[in-house]
């Protein structure tokens, strides 16, 4: 009622109009609607995959890849390992290299502890001590006369 009074004030022409819907629907529309909706819903249900299926569908590529990898391993590695175990063991030994082979200095450094390592670093470098006679002996035994001439000429 209050709303009607308000409408009369703001829109007198509108308030005098009949509140009727000018729309109609086809005959038996509401009787048939439920059945038509049911048909559409059944179609939707077929399109909609179940949650569990959806997860499987998402994981399918990964599962396929893993299965292929496993198959390759089964077909190649397993027969070789079973029938020709020596080949595989040889290859494995040949490919194994220790750190000591690769870098002996690294192996030494890895074996010493931190305190020793820093103690070595902090030791003053020792000046080489030798006399003239030792120097002459070293040069005469390791260098030719021509090399000595070239060095002194420079």
């Amino acid at each position, binding site marked *: 009622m209050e*709303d009607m009074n308000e*409408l009369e004030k*703001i*829109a*007198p*022409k*509108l308030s005098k*109009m*009949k*509140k*009727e*819907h*000018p*729309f*109609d*629907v*086809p005959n038996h*529309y*509401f009787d048939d*609607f*439920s059945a*038509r*909706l*049911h048909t*559409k*819903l059944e179609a*939707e249900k077929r399109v*909609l995959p179940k949650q569990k299926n959806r997860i499987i569908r998402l994981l399918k590529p990964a599962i396929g890849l893993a299965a292929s990898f496993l198959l390759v391993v089964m077909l190649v590695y397993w027969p070789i390992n079973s029938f020709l175990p020596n080949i595989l063991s040889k290859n494995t030994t040949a490919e194994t290299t220790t750190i000591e082979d690769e870098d002996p200095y690294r192996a030494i450094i890895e074996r010493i502890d931190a305190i020793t390592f820093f103690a070595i670093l902090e030791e003053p470098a020792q000046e080489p001590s030798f006399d003239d006679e030792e120097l002459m002996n070293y040069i005469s035994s390791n260098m030719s006369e021509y090399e000595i001439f070239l060095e002194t000429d420079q």
Partner: protein
Amino acid sequence: MNNEDRELIAELKKEGQKDLAFQSLVKKYQERLYWHIRKMVLNHDDTDDILQNTFIKVWKNVGNFREESGLYTWLYRIATNEAITFLNSKKRRNLMSLNDENDYLKDNLISDPYFEGDKIQLKLQEAILRLPDKQRIVFNMKYFDEIKYEDMSKILETSVGALKASYHHAAKKIEEFLKNSDL
């Protein structure tokens, strides 16, 4: 929410009873939702499509319905959103301006074989379809369906004050249009 709706929701959430309960829900609410949608899009065929989509959405999402609002409020909200989405997609597809949209809706109304209004009712509908979407929804819900602002507020998720203002502006615009038409 009334007890009947509460039971209906409980049955809808049980896998074995879902289909039967859904049929009851459709029977109970199809007409009210139809008229709500029809007033927004005007044409019967469009309304039929939107109503079907509304119920399919209800069927898919009823498991997530948390019963914070009434069942009818929830259904009304879905129907309103579906109708707005339909109108917006139509606008985008046809690159319509507001005037084009008005013309489209008017043509849709006149060509609809299920429109049976006289000259005055056609003028009133023309005035209504000239309103912006939100004002049109509020006006229809208040003027024709006499829904309380409080209920409307829950359906449209808008404050009561804003709804009152929308209705006031809509009524004034319609009055202005009717005055300028020779009625």
